[in-house]
């Protein structure tokens, strides 16, 4: 029986990655009956090996190299599989290290997420600790600190989006209008640079520049007769400094995507605009911006999907107990509760909540982007 391509497995992320594969699914007869059901239940984390290979037989296969068996039963299928492996074993040898690594370092921790539902003890280990159900989640949602961290995460992300999102677009439009190539190249090089500097160094620069006695910011404020402010201990200053630093570091680099979109705009559009007597300002508004609008929308959707992604490394480097009330985000909360205080199970519960919400947001953002444009992340 063949799997109808219009009946994807329940999970949104498992839709055919591209049209070609969708087609080959329709054409290729799949091994024994029941394979489709197996495939549907096969979680992405399912163990590899014989069963893992079997349950997805034929799905990524292309017509010319693989000759799949017709419906002659399991024995025939296994024989064919053995022949295939004898001929193509080298591919699986090449693939194995990556898959083993993923299982060991990324999928095994997903199994370890069960500590979120357990009373974890170091001596009993992940598997041996007793189950306690949703107790950690109840504690979590009764915890003012966690709710504050959640609120701060969303607020900081929202500000970064609101103020930070337009800047790279603006930069790309401006770079596009620079006529002198040397000047353009030089300014691009300089603006991309902060992206490649480590967060420790960026934080070091911020701490130094905002220092009350020595920092250049307070020196400059002094020129206007303003008394020194100890910025990094003031909760009301944390968010502006954090969001501003993020924009300073990433806006240039993010503009690359928009510059690429602009370079894809058909020159004939500009030529006809010139014939119509359009000024450069009008061409920017009437040609360039409408042409890159799809890219802008996709980037916006992706950013909204990543709203729980605050670069917590930078938060750890910049915050201090005095500013926790506006600075503490979910991941820094997890870091303090889990790794510093050793409450692994409770912190893992917070992490699980965060990961699930983030996953749902990303999947939702992607399917929206898929619906309204032909581009998507997968």
């Amino acid at each position: 029986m063949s799997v109808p391509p219009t009946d994807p497995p329940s999970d949104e992320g498992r839709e055919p990655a591209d049209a070609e594969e969708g087609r080959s699914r329709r054409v290729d007869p799949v091994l024994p009956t029941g394979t489709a059901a197996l495939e549907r239940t096969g979680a992405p984390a399912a163990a590899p090996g014989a069963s893992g290979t079997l349950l997805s037989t034929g799905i990524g296969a292309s017509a010319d190299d693989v000759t799949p068996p017709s419906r002659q039963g399991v024995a025939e299928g296994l024989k064919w599989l053995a022949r295939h492996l004898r001929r193509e074993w080298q591919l699986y040898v090449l693939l194995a290290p990556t898959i083993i690594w993923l299982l060991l370092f990324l999928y095994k921790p997903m199994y370890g997420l069960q500590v979120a539902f357990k009373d974890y003890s170091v001596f009993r280990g992940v598997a041996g600790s007793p189950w306690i159900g949703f107790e950690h989640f109840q504690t979590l949602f009764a915890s003012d600190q966690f709710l504050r961290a959640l609120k701060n995460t969303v607020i900081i992300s929202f500000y970064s989006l609101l103020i930070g999102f337009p800047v790279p677009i603006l930069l790309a439009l401006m770079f596009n209008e620079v006529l002198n190539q040397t000047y353009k190249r030089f300014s691009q090089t300089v603006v991309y640079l902060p992206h490649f500097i480590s967060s420790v160094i960026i934080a070091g620069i911020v701490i130094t520049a905002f220092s009350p006695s020595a920092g250049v910011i307070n020196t400059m404020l002094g020129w206007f007769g303003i008394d020194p402010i100890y910025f990094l201990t003031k909760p009301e200053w944390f968010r502006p400094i954090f969001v501003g630093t993020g924009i300073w570091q990433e806006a240039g680099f993010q503009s690359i995507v928009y510059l690429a979109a602009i370079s894809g705009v058909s020159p004939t559009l500009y030529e006809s605009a010139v014939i119509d007597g359009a000024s450069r300002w009008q061409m920017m508004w009437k040609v360039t911006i409408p042409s890159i609008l799809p890219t802008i929308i996709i980037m916006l959707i992706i950013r909204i999907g990543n709203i729980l992604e605050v670069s917590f490394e930078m938060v750890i480097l910049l915050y201090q107990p005095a500013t926790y009330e506006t600075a503490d985000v979910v991941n820094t909360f997890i870091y303090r509760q889990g790794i510093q205080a050793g409450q692994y199970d409770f912190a893992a519960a917070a992490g699980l909540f965060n990961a699930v919400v983030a996953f749902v947001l990303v999947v939702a953002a992607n399917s929206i982007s898929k619906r309204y444009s032909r581009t998507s992340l997968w």
Partner: protein
Amino acid sequence: MANMNLYSRGDKIFVITNMVLIGMFAISALYPFIYIASLSFSSGFEARAGRVVLTPVDVTIEAYRYVLSDPQFWISYKNTFIYTIGGTLMSLAFIIPGAYALSRPQLLGRRFWNLTVAFTMWFNAGLIPFFLNMRDLGLLDSYFGIIIGFAVNGFNIILLRNFFESVPQSFEEAARMDGANEFQVLWKVYVPLSKPAIATIALFCIVSRWNGFFWAMVLLQDDDKIPLQVFLRHTIATLSDDQEFGATLFDASYSFETVSAAIIVCSIIPVLTIYPFMQKYFEKGILLGGVKE
């Protein structure tokens, strides 16, 4: 700017305003680095008093002398090189074969394996399970743990897989005629043809390894194993708590600010050195891996 004559008066104003604004962006991107460099060459006394704004005041190299004479600085510099080189080679050793296998049409369950890779980009277990896993694997406080634990990254695999898929079939046919096996096709045909993509990934790995901080801080306890970023963090954190540092001397030749600035300069220099080579690649790299799985 000869071709500006083609444009109207309004266009000229627009173009010039734009150039000025771009210049301001560029200056604001560059200024913090200039400030830090100037600070590192100023005397501690002047730095403390907040008199350094653009250029060094009361030029001295005392801060560098202090930093470079600290054995811990050299230990962590060496460690950063070990993590960067070892980690990048380890990443390539996983990513190149893996991406190649995933790009082959005859791979059984190709969609499933691709999904296994891509899923890790959308969902990860989070800090705590990852940390507990590293502990259970006995990889705390070890060079090997840092090098192997962050070797594979779904984004890089997919980026390289996309590149391999774009290589025309005709390139490998001659090799196949000569009876080359998969290993030989990968090594003799695909790797040489994919040098730009591999260089892009290597550069991404180098930068993320050089800059890596959080997990090195969490996983490494032993001072002999910490990388430069962790050392820098410790220095800034301890010196800024110790307000008396350097200030007790009447005309302190170095201070917390100038010493921090000197370490920052020392750790930025290697990045600045390879940056011109990188720029060629990273613009392409982003676009190659950006849009589609």
